[in-house]
C-alpha cells in the first residue's frame, strides 16, 4: 500500500481521505513512530505499525476505550488485521474527530480537522527517532541533560515522604523498554511538573520555558489537577518505572508502599523505637504523628485504620501503614473507610520479603549517585517545596517543615544507602519474625484495668490463721525447758531429755487462787517427782523410770495435743489461759501421773504420797470443776472464733470465685 499523501485509501473501504500537509506530516511521523525502528516505509511488505505501540498512542489520546475500539474498527485495522498506513491515518483522523467532539464516523473525518492530540505528543520535535534505541528501562534521554540528571537525583529522593503516585503516567509507561518517545514525554512532562518547584519557582513558567514541552491546554489541565498531588512525589513515578519489576504491576495504587518509602518508614520507626520487633506505644506515636500537622480527628481515624489489633501500640507494619496513610492524606488523598489491602500488616509482612529481588536494583541505584548530589538535591527540594504554589488545601509549610526535619535524617540516611539493601533483608526478616511472633491478647487492656479494680475492691486480706508454731515451740520449749530446768533443779542424772516427759511446770507462775492450795500439792508433787526421781536413781531402775515416763509421755502428749489445739486457735489471747490450762492440765497430769506412778511403780517412795493425795482430792475435785468450767469457756471462745474464721473463709472463697469468673469473662471475648 502506498502511504502516499492523498492515498489514505482505507483498505477495502475505498475511502479517499484528504489530508492536509500538516496532517500528512504528522501522521507519517506518528506512523513511523509506531513502526519498528527500521522503517521500511513503502517497501513491498507494507509496513505496519506495531499494534502495541499503536495502542499506546491511541491511549495517549485520552479517549475512552470504547471510542478507541470504534476507531480501530472504523479504520479497518480490525478487518485487515494490522495497522497499515492507511488504517493508521484514518485512525488518527478519527481520533482527531473524536477529540474535537465529533462523532466517530467516517464522514466526520472528511472535513478538515485539527491534529489529533496525544497526551504526550505535544511537539514534533520530541519525536526523537534517533534516541529510540537508547531508551531502556533505566535511562531516559531527555532534551535537557540537566533535566535528566535532575531526574536521577529526584528519583533518589526516595527518602522523603512520597507516595506512589503514577496513575496518569503508568499506563503509558508500562512497557518500559519501548522506544517510543511519547512514553518519555509524559515522564519529562511529569518531571516538568514536579521539578517546577525544583528548577523554577513556578511550575507553569517552567513548562513555558521548557520549549521542548509544548503542552497544550487540556493536557496541562489534566496534569494541573494532579500537580498538587505530585508536587514532591513525581520521582516516585520515576522510581516506579525504574523498578519495573517492582511496581509496574501496580501502577495505579496509591496505597502501595514502595521500597524506598518502606525504608524511610522503617528508619522513622527505628528513631522512635530502636527495636524493630517491639511496638511503639500510643503516646509516642501520638506525639510523632501530631508533628505531621494533620487535624486530630483525621489522625484518630488513621490510627483506627492502622492499628488493626486495637491494642494501643503500633508494630512495624502497622506503623508503616499509618505513616503511609498520613503521607497520602497530606498529598490530598481522602482517607479510606477501611484499610486498603496493601496496607494490612499481613500483607506488609509478606511484602517485606520483596526487596530481596529488588535489592540489586537499589544497589545500582545508590551506587550511581554521588551523595553530594543527593544532599544538594535535598536542599533544593526543601526550598522548592516551600516555594511551591499551594494548590491543595494542605498545609505545604507543614510539609516543608517536615522535610526540613526529615532532611537531616534523610541525608544521613543516604550515606549508608549502599549498605541498605543488605540491611534490608535482615531488617525484613526480623520484622517478619517479630510479627509472626506477635500475639498480644486482645484483652490486655481489659485485664490491666479490671483486675486492678477487682483487686482494690477485694482488698482487705483475711486475717491469717493463727500460727500453730507457738504451741509446738512452747510445748517443746516447755518440755525442754522444763526438762532442763528440772535437770538443773533436780539432780542431774541420766535423765533422758528426749521424751517430752512431764516436766514440772514453773509452778511459780501458777494462778493465784490456787497458788496457796496448789503450792503444797505442787510442791509435794514436785517433791514427789523429785523424790521419785531420787528413788529411781537410788534404785537405779531405769526401766521403771522409763515406764512412768513413757506412760506419762503419751498421756502428756495426748493431753498436750488437745491443749495444743486450743492454743493453736487462741494464741494471743489465751496465753495466760493456756498457762492456766496447762497448769491445770499439768496438775491433772501430775495428779494423774502420781496415781499412775503410784500404780505402776512399786516403789515405796510413792506410797507415802497417797495419803497426801486423799487429802487433796477434794481440792482437786474443785480444781477439776473449775478446770472444766474454764474449758467450757475456752470452748465457747474457740467455737466463736471458729465460726468467724469460717465466715472469713467463705468470703474469701466468694471473692476468689468472683475474680475467677471475671477473669474468664475478660479473656478474649468472642464478639458475637
Amino acid at each position, binding site marked *: 500500500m502506498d502511504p502516499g499523501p492523498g492515498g489514505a485509501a482505507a483498505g477495502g473501504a475505498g475511502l479517499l481521505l484528504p489530508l492536509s500537509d500538516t496532517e500528512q506530516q504528522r501522521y507519517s511521523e506518528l506512523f513511523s513512530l509506531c513502526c519498528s525502528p527500521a522503517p521500511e516505509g513503502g517497501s513491498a511488505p507494507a509496513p505496519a505499525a506495531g499494534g502495541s505501540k499503536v495502542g499506546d498512542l491511541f491511549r495517549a489520546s485520552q479517549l475512552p476505550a470504547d471510542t478507541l475500539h470504534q476507531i480501530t474498527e472504523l479504520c479497518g485495522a480490525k478487518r485487515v488485521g494490522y495497522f497499515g498506513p492507511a488504517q493508521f491515518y484514518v485512525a488518527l483522523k478519527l481520533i482527531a474527530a473524536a477529540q474535537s467532539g465529533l462523532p466517530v464516523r467516517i464522514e466526520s473525518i472528511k472535513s478538515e480537522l485539527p491534529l489529533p492530540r496525544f497526551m504526550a505528543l505535544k511537539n514534533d520535535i520530541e519525536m526523537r527517532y534517533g534516541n529510540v534505541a537508547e531508551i531502556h528501562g533505566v535511562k531516559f534521554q531527555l532534551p535537557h541533560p540537566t533535566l535528566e540528571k535532575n531526574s536521577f537525583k529526584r528519583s533518589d529522593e526516595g527518602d522523603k515522604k512520597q507516595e506512589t503516585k503514577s496513575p496518569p503516567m503508568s499506563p503509558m509507561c508500562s512497557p518500559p523498554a519501548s522506544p517510543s518517545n511519547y512514553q518519555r514525554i509524559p515522564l519529562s512532562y511529569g518531571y516538568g511538573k514536579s521539578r517546577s518547584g525544583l528548577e523554577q519557582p513556578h511550575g507553569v513558567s517552567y513548562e513555558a520555558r521548557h520549549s521542548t514541552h509544548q503542552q497544550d491546554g487540556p493536557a496541562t489541565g489534566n496534569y494541573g489537577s494532579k500537580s498538587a498531588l505530585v508536587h514532591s512525589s513525581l520521582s516516585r513515578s520515576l522510581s516506579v518505572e525504574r523498578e519495573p519489576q517492582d511496581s509496574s504491576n501496580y501502577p495505579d495504587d496509591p496505597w502501595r508502599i514502595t521500597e524506598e518509602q518502606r525504608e524511610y518508614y522503617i528508619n522513622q520507626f527505628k528513631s522512635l523505637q530502636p527495636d524493630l520487633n517491639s511496638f511503639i506505644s*500510643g*503516646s509516642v*506515636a*501520638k506525639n510523632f504523628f501530631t508533628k505531621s500537622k494533620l487535624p*486530630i*480527628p483525621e*489522625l*484518630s*481515624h488513621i*490510627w*483506627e485504620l492502622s*492499628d488493626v489489633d*486495637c*491494642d*494501643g501500640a503500633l508494630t512495624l507494619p502497622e506503623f508503616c501503614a499509618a505513616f503511609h496513610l498520613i503521607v497520602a492524606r497530606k498529598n490530598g488523598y481522602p482517607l479510606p*473507610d477501611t484499610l486498603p489491602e496493601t496496607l494490612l500488616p499481613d500483607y506488609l509482612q509478606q511484602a517485606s520479603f520483596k526487596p530481596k529481588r529488588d535489592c540489586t536494583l537499589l544497589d545500582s541505584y545508590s551506587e550511581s549517585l554521588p551523595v553530594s548530589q543527593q544532599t544538594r538535591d535535598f536542599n533544593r527540594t526543601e526550598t522548592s517545596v516551600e516555594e511551591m504554589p499551594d494548590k491543595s488545601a494542605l498545609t505545604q509549610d507543614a510539609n516543608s517543615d517536615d522535610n526540613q526535619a526529615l532532611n537531616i535524617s534523610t541525608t544521613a540516611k543516604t550515606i549508608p544507602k549502599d549498605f541498605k539493601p543488605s540491611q534490608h533483608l535482615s531488617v525484613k526478616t526480623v520484622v517478619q519474625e517479630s510479627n509472626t511472633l506477635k500475639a498480644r491478647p486482645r484483652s490486655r*487492656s*481489659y485485664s490491666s*484495668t*479490671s483486675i486492678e*479494680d*477487682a483487686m482494690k*475492691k*477485694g482488698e482487705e486480706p483475711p486475717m491469717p490463721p493463727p500460727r500453730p508454731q507457738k504451741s509446738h515451740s512452747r510445748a517443746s520449749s516447755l518440755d525442754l525447758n522444763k526438762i532442763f530446768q528440772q535437770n538443773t533443779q533436780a539432780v542431774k542424772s541420766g535423765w533422758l531429755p528426749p521424751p517430752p516427759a512431764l516436766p514440772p511446770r514453773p509452778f511459780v507462775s501458777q494462778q493465784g487462787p490456787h497458788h496457796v492450795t496448789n503450792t503444797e500439792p505442787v510442791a509435794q508433787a514436785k517433791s514427789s517427782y523429785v523424790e521419785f526421781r531420787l528413788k529411781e536413781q537410788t534404785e537405779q531402775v531405769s526401766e521403771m523410770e522409763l515406764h512412768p515416763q513413757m506412760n506419762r509421755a503419751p498421756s502428756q502428749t495426748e493431753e498436750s495435743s488437745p491443749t495444743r489445739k486450743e492454743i493453736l486457735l487462741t494464741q494471743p489471747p489465751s496465753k495466760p489461759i493456756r498457762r492456766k490450762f496447762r497448769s491445770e492440765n499439768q496438775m491433772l497430769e501430775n495428779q494423774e501421773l502420781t496415781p499412775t506412778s503410784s500404780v505402776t511403780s512399786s516403789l515405796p517412795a510413792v506410797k507415802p504420797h497417797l495419803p497426801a493425795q486423799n487429802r487433796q482430792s477434794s481440792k482437786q475435785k474443785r480444781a477439776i470443776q473449775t478446770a472444766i468450767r474454764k474449758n467450757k469457756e475456752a470452748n465457747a471462745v474457740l467455737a466463736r472464733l471458729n465460726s468467724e474464721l469460717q465466715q472469713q473463709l467463705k468470703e474469701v472463697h*466468694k*471473692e476468689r470465685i*468472683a*475474680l475467677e*469468673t*471475671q477473669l474468664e*469473662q*475478660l479473656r478474649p*471475648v468472642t*464478639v*458475637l
Partner: protein
Amino acid sequence: MAVCIAVIAKENYPLYIRSIPTENELKFHYTVHTSLDVVDEKISAMGKALVDQRELYLGLLYPTEDYKVYGYVTNSKVKFVMVVDSSNTALRDNEIRSMFRKLHNSYTDVMCNPFYNPGDCIHSRAFDNMVTSMMMQVC
C-alpha cells in the same frame, strides 16, 4: 430493635448518643437521661459488693409501654444505655448482654486510640459502624 444507644460518661454527660428514627430523638434523649437515675440507684445498691461481669450488666432499668431500657456500667463508671422497642419480644436477655459486650469491646477500642482523650465525644467510625450494625441487626 435497639432504637437508641447511648454512652454516658462517668460524670453523666453523654459521650455518644444515637437513635434510629430520626424523629423523636429528643424523646429518646430524655428517656436516657431519666434512666440515668435508675442506673445510679442500681450502682449504689451494689455498694461494696464486687463488681464483676454479671453486675456490669444492670438489666432492665424500666419498661414503658413502647420500649424498654437496659443498662450496663463499666468498671470506670461509663454507662451504656440501650433503648429497645417493646414490640420486639424476641430479644432475650442474653442477646442484650451480648450487645452490651460488643459495645464494651468497641468502646475499649476507641479508648485504645491515643488520639482519643477520655471525656471527648466519640467520633470513631468503627464505633459508629458497630452501633449501626447493632441497630440494624436487631431490627
